[in-house]
């Protein structure tokens, strides 16, 4: 089975200063990869590379051969801070803008409209379709942007810090939804909140300049339950103090 995305010996950055170096990563169908790391460690740069917003300085990014490179089969949920909440745009138009990502065949207008309707209903936001984006709660906004990401039937769903949309109480709802979506698509989720994502993701990549891939999500629910508080920090090494393997 070929990887959907294969990143080979890739370095990337801005103004000739690399932020990421010698990164190797493969994302397969039905992967649920959590990308964690400190701010400035290169998590967002990695997403930009996959989205095609940034060209690698060295190395390659390869999509699986059956995937058209130009129209990427990628759904993308941006960070909430990147959204202009004063922009005069309705929920309906935001969702429909997801059609930009779709392949040329699906651009037929009535098909797109039907798909928008289905998604609005599925995500329970059909009743707020005419509201302005700035009038929504964090949870509603998250669902609207998830609709936009899903409109193109993506094979890979990228989420950049999705937990910043809502407070902790509503996070569970999102992750349950992602677990369901994961049956049909690979998911790459960027977060700095390791404790919350660790019970849902299947594999973990630690990004801090270099990328370290942990094929097993070795943090078990039992370990997390051992503490009667949310876990915000996990370090590497030997149990009992640490739970992920050391980087070589």
């Amino acid at each position: 089975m070929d990887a959907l995305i294969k990143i080979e010996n890739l370095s990337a950055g801005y103004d000739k200063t690399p932020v990421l170096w010698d990164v190797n990563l493969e994302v397969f169908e039905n992967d649920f990869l959590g990308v964690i790391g400190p701010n400035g460690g290169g998590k967002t740069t990695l997403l930009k590379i996959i989205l095609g917003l940034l060209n690698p300085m060295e190395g390659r990014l390869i999509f699986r051969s059956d995937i058209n490179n130009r129209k990427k089969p990628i759904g993308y949920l941006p960070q909430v801070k990147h959204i202009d909440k004063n922009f005069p745009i309705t929920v309906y138009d935001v969702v429909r803008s997801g059609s930009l990502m779709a392949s040329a065949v699906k651009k037929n207008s009535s098909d797109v409209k039907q798909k928008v309707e289905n998604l609005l209903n599925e995500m329970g936001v059909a009743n707020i379709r005419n509201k302005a984006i700035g009038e929504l709660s964090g949870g509603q906004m998250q669902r609207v942007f998830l609709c936009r990401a899903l409109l193109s039937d993506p094979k890979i769903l990228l989420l950049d810090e999705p937990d910043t949309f809502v407070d902790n109480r509503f996070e569970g709802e999102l992750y349950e939804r992602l677990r369901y979506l994961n049956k049909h698509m690979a998911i790459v989720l960027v977060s700095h909140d390791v404790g919350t994502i660790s019970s849902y993701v299947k594999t973990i990549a630690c990004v801090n300049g270099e990328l370290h891939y942990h094929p097993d999500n070795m943090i078990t629910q039992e370990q997390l339950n051992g503490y009667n508080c949310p876990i915000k920090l996990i370090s590497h090494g030997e149990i009992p103090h640490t739970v992920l393997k050391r980087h070589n």
Partner: protein
Amino acid sequence: MNNFFELFSYDFFQKAFLAAIFASISCGIVGSYIVSRRIVFISGGITHASFGGIGLAFLLGFNPLIGAVAFAVGSALGIQFFTKVARVREDSSIAIFWSLGMALGIIFVWMTPGYTPNLMSYLFGNILTVSIAELWWMFILNVVVILTFSLFYRKILYIAFDEEFARAAGLPVNLFNYLTITLVALTVVLNIRVVGIILILSLLTIPQATANLFTKDFKNLLILSSVIAFLGTLIGLFISYFMDIPSGATIIFTLVVMFGLLKLYKTFF
């Protein structure tokens, strides 16, 4: 009241009325884009830079509108180039083009021999002296603006709302940015005769702020801004005629009063 209807039989007033319609549509649409996209400051830079072209035209004796178009489009593209390619901070490059255009304009006008009688009408506008040729240019601008915004409505909207997403989807974002900023430049220049360089920015922002009180939908904003701009321009035109005060300033004052009253209405009802 007779006076009022008699006005429409005058040739100069018919032209002013047409100019009001054309200015309202182009400024309503382009202004909504500017405000939504938060590029009001760029538009201010372009407007003021065009003064350099007007000065040059006075000095060399050609049509000031042509000079203004050249300087406006040149500075629009120049600001984009400075920011994206030469990596100068955007607000700094806007300020550079803004003041460079004004400075050149002042030097050129000073070098022009004799008195420059029309200078004031470019700075402060005079809708009552718009010529037939200028009306034709305004009409063509309206056709271009309406065509562009209806043909590429969704693409323009999506790029304005989330440029990164549009880029990721492979839209030619840079091409669209150059196209729309050129339209902004042309709209500014061809409407200068209505309210002048100093005040044109308000025709691009105040009706939009008023319309934004009542709608948060981009398409409705384009239409409602144009309607409000037209009402304000027309009312201002009547007031300025009957009170014999400068038209450009009266139009802007009317637009601000409309905004204030409707804002109060929205707040209390």
